C-alpha cells in the first residue's frame, strides 16, 4: 500500500462516514455540516483522479457556495416559522430493503466487470484542454448551459415573486 492508496482511502472514508451522518442525523444543521465534509471528500477524490479543474470547482461551488446557501436557508426559515427543524425517518424498512438491494447489485456489477486499467502517471493540468474543448467541440452545449441557467434564474425569480 503506497501513499496514493492511503490518501485515497482517507478521502473515501471521510466521504462515506460523513454521508452516513447526513442521512441519519435528526438535526438539519448537523446534516448540512456533514454534507460539507462529504463534498470535500469527493473533491479530494477528483484531485486524486487527476481531474484538478473539477476538484477545484467542486470546492468553490459546492463547499464554498451551495453549502453556505443551505445553512443560511436553514437558519432563516428557522427564525420565521418558529418550528424546530428536524427531519424524521420514514419508510425505514422498505427503503433499506430497496437501497440494500440496489447497493448489492451495483457492487456485483462493479466487481464483475473487467475494467480498463490505465498506467498511473503524474497528470498534467487539464484546465487548458478543457477550455479548448468547451469553446470548440462542446460550444453548443456550453451555450445551452447558459440558457439553462437563465431559465432556472427566471424560474427562481418567479417562485420568489410576491
Amino acid at each position, binding site marked *: 500500500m503506497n501513499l496514493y492508496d492511503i490518501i485515497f482511502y482517507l478521502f473515501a472514508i471521510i466521504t462515506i462516514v460523513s454521508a452516513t451522518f447526513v442521512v441519519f442525523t435528526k438535526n438539519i444543521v448537523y446534516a448540512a455540516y456533514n454534507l460539507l465534509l462529504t463534498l470535500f471528500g469527493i473533491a479530494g477524490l477528483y484531485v486524486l483522479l487527476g481531474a484538478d479543474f473539477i476538484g477545484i470547482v467542486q470546492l468553490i461551488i459546492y463547499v464554498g457556495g451551495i453549502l453556505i446557501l443551505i445553512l443560511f436557508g436553514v437558519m432563516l426559515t428557522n427564525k420565521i416559522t418558529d418550528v424546530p427543524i428536524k427531519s424524521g425517518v*420514514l*419508510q425505514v424498512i422498505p427503503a433499506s430493503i430497496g*437501497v440494500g438491494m440496489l447497493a448489492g447489485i451495483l457492487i456485483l456489477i462493479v466487481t464483475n466487470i473487467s475494467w480498463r486499467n490505465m498506467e498511473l502517471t503524474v497528470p498534467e493540468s487539464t484546465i487548458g484542454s478543457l477550455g479548448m474543448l468547451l469553446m470548440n467541440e462542446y460550444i453548443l452545449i456550453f451555450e445551452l448551459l447558459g440558457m439553462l441557467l437563465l431559465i432556472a434564474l427566471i424560474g427562481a425569480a418567479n417562485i420568489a415573486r410576491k
Partner: protein
Amino acid sequence: MIDLIYLTVLLPLIGFAINGLLGPKIKNEKVIGVIGSGAVGISFLISLGIFFELLGKPAAERHFIVNLFQWIKVDYLNIPIGYQVDPLSILMALVVTGVGFVIHVYSIGYMHGDKGFWRFFAYLNLFIFAMMNLILADNFVLLFLGWEGVGLCSYLLIGFWYDRKFENSTTADAAKKAFVVNRIGDFGFLIGMFIIYLTFNSLRFEEVFAQVKLGGIPESTFNMIALFLFIGATGKSAQIPLYVWLPDAMAGPTPVSALIHAATMVTAGVYMVARTSVIYASAPTIMMVVAVVGLLTAIFAASIGLVQNDIKKVLAYSTVSQLGYMFLAMGVGAFTAGIFHVMTHAFFKALLFLAAGSVIHGMHEEQNIQKYGGLKKYMPVTYLTFLTGAIAISGIPPFSGFFSKDEILWYSYANAGFAFWLVGAITAMLTAFYMFRLYSLTFEGEGRFDHHHVHPHESPKVMTVPLIVLAILSVIGGFIGIPEIFSGSGGNQIKNWLDPVFKPANSLLAKHGAHSHFEEILLMAVSVAAAAGAIYFARFVYLKRKDIAESASLKFPGLYRLLFNKYLIDEAYDKAIISPIVKVSDGFLWKFTDVKIIDGLVNKTASLIESFASQIRKMQTGVAQFYAVIMVLGIVIAFFWIMASL
C-alpha cells in the same frame, strides 16, 4: 345506377347532419320527420334500382366494387373506402333501408311530442349510415368502422330516455352494459382481423377470399380466425355468453328496439359470418361451435321467454332465440337459409315490436302483460297485425317464418344430425307457446286494467300504416324461398339469388348423403304440428284454464323462479366478473396505493394549511420517499434481470 351506391350511405349521413345540427332550430316535428324518413326512403329507392339492375345481369356478373377514395395507403396496408355491390349486400341493404324507412315513419307518430324528437331522428339516421357501411364494406376495416358505429348509435339510443328508471337501475346503466359487453365482442373481432392481416397480408375481402380458395394455409389458422370473429359476432348478435345486454336494451324507445335490436344491427354478426363464409367453411370445427352455440342460445332464450311478463322482454328473448336459429343455420352450412331468416325475421320481429309499441302507446306506457287483456276490440289494426306477426314467427305455413325456419331445421337435420333438428323443433314449439301466451294475455280475454283510468285507444294512421305494410311483408315475404320439393328444381328464388356469393364456401363443405323427399315432408309436418299444438295449448291455458299456469308455477317453484330470473346469469356475471374487477381497482390498487397514501396526503394538505410549515415537509418527504422506494425497486428488478440474462 350501381355507381350511385355511395348515395345510399351518404343520404342518411346528410339527414343526420341536418337534423343533428339544425334540429333544435327547426322545431317543427313534421319537417324533421320528413327529412329523417326521406333520407332513408330515397336510399331504399336507390337500393331497389340497383337491385333490379343486378337482376338484369347474368348471375356470375353480379359483383361490383365501387371505390370512393383511398383511405389508408401505406406500403404494407392498402384500404380504400370501397363499397361492394353483390347479391348478399344488396339484399341486406334492401332490408335495412326498407324496414328502416317504415320504422322511421312509425317513429314520427310514436315520438310525437318528445322533447328529444330531433335528437332521436338524428341518431336513427346516423345508425342507418353506420349500418350501410357495415353491410356494403368491401374490406374488414370499413366493416369494423360500421360495426363500432352501430354499437355507438345503439348505445346512444338505449339511453335516449336517460332520465327514466329502468327496472332497478337507469336506462343509462342499460346503455353502458350494452356498450361494454359489445366491446368484449369487438375485442375478439379485432384479434380476428389481426390474424387475417398476418396470414393474408391484406384486409380486403376479395384478396383474402381469393387466397383462402387457393389453399395451403393450415386449418388451425382458420380455426383461430373463425373463432375470434365469432366472438365478435356473439357480442353484436347477442349469443351465449354475451347475450345479456339485449334484454336490457329494451330500455330504449320501442322503434329503436324494432330497428336496431330486432331487425338490423343484431343480425350484423350473422351477416359477418355469411360474408366470411369461405373462412368458416375452411374451419369445420368452428362451424360446429357456431352451430352448437346458436342452438343452445335458441332454446335457452326461448325457455326464459316462457315466463316473462314485460311485453318487450318477451320479444327481446324471442329475438335472442331467433338469432340463435340464424347462427345454427350458419353453423350447419345453410348460409342462404340463415340470410333468408334474417330477412323474414326483420319483417315479423319489427312488426311485433312496432305493434307492441302501439299497445304500450295506447295503454299509457304500461308494459306488464298481466295488466293487459281484451285489447282486440280497442285496437283492431294493432290486434290483427300482431296476430299476423305471431303466426309468422311460430312457423305456420304459408306465413314467411315457416319457410325460413323450416329451411334451417331441414339443413340442421341433413348436415348435422337428428339431435340438432330435435332441439330446433322444440325451440320452435316453445316459440309458438310464448308468442301465443303473449298474444292471448294481451288481446283476448277480459281486460285486467283499471277501466277508470286507462282508456286503450288505437294509434294514429302514421303508426298503423307501417304496421300494415310490415304485416303484408310478413305474410308474403316467404314466397321467395319456397323449398325445392314444392317449387321444383331451381324454384327457390332466394337460393338462386344468393348462390354466387356462397358458392366458394359450399364447394368447400363436405357433401352429405342424400335424403328422401319423404323425410323432408315428414319433418316439416311434425314441426308444424308441434307449433300448432303449442298455439292451441297456450290459448287453452291462458284463456280457459288459467289455473293450469298458476299451478304449474306453484308445482315447480324452483324451475319457475330460475326461468323468471333468467337463470340468474346477470347475477352470476356480476359476481364472477364485474365485482372482482371493481374490487381490484377500487379495493386494492386504488385504496392501497392511492387513497391511503396519495389521497390521504391531499386531504391532509387541506387541513394542513394552518400548520403548513411544520407539517408539510414531513408529509412531502415521507411520501416522496415512498415513491422513490417504488422506483428503486423497479430499478433493482431490472438489474436482476440484466444480471440473469448476461
